[in-house]
């Protein structure tokens, strides 16, 4: 197969775009498409500082790389969840994130990298917290809550305008599918490439890879020589989102472009007012302990986790 742009041997064929590209032109294509998403969805205004949440996985490291190459002021944040799973999962993913951060700083000297270690910060890792809350088999909702809170906290403390996560199209489509299967209208209203800041001093949340397939982010990481952690978090095993991904990938195989259509048409329908009537977004108040917005009276659900 030949690169559509230059005719050299292609390294990737994307049936969903009817497009095959060589390494050089594929990398350029990813940069171009990310730029387009950033502009179209108004993700980053000129001069804004971006904090990228990096997990050590392919998507977030690739995103950090892309933002730096595009000339954005992008720094990294790694949250150590203290997950072992018999293979030192958190330690290994932190090592990958750190090694990549060193490479970024060498290339872009102003780049900074921050680490939050839950065990050091709050005295408990995710598995310990989950055990205390009797959620040891499926700590993901707790973990998500903690990660969101810590990303907000760090962005606020360090004065970032924008918080970027590496969610790719496949992630967004799996989430959308799950939300539709349960008609979670509240979640559907809030599922967006850009979420405005919920409160004073908080960062806007953006997903610049929301229209990029995960096969494409993986190819980008491989071609740029980004050493990422290939293994999944031990708790991801058997997750519903992975089952959805399997089903959706079978559909994508049968009809290339299915995922992109599903997502893009959803965003269009939402922009045209679908779900608006059901929105009924709850009033937000400020947590009495940490000051982050919450729907609860008094303390937010994160701060309540640590009350014993």
């Amino acid at each position: 197969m030949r690169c559509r742009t230059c005719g050299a041997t292609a390294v990737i064929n994307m049936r969903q775009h009817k497009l095959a590209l060589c390494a050089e032109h594929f990398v350029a294509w990813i940069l171009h498409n990310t730029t387009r998403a950033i502009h179209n969805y108004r993700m980053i205004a000129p001069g804004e500082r971006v904090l990228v949440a990096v997990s050590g996985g392919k998507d977030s490291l690739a995103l950090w790389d892309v933002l730096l190459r595009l000339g954005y002021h992008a720094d990294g944040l790694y949250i150590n969840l203290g997950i072992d799973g018999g293979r030192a999962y958190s330690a290994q993913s932190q090592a990958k994130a750190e090694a990549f951060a060193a490479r970024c700083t060498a290339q872009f000297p102003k780049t900074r990298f921050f680490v939050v270690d839950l065990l050091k910060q709050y005295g408990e890792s995710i598995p310990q917290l989950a055990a205390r809350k009797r959620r040891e088999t499926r700590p993901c909702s707790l973990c998500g809550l903690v990660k969101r809170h810590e990303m907000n906290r760090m962005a606020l403390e360090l004065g970032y305008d924008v918080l970027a996560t590496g969610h790719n199209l496949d992630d967004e489509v799996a989430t959308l599918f799950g939300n539709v299967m349960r008609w979670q209208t509240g979640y559907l209203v809030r599922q967006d490439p850009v979420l405005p800041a919920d409160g004073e001093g908080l960062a806007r949340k953006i997903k610049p890879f929301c229209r990029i397939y995960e096969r494409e982010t993986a190819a980008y990481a491989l071609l740029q020589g980004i050493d990422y952690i290939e293994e999944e978090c031990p708790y991801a095993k058997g997750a519903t989102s992975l089952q959805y991904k399997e089903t959706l990938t079978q559909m994508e195989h049968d009809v290339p472009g299915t995922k992109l259509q599903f997502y893009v048409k959803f965003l269009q329908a939402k922009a045209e007012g679908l779900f608006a009537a059901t929105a009924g977004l709850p009033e937000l108040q400020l947590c009495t302990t940490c000051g982050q917005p919450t729907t609860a009276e008094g303390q937010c659900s994160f701060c309540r986790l640590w009350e014993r």
Partner: protein
Amino acid sequence: MQVTYRGKQFAIEETLTVLQLLKRLKLLPESVLVIRNGQLVTEDHHLLPDDMVKIVSVVSGG
């Protein structure tokens, strides 16, 4: 060819295209990338007896 997939290594004696190899392993081309001797290759690529092939799953998350 020597094939590595999810940390396991095995040998396949025939010459196959990438797509044929994936079919044999019951993998969808949409869920993996194939690296032949360190180079990313497309599905129509012919894999030869001496090749070192790595199949990388692209599915992440939980």
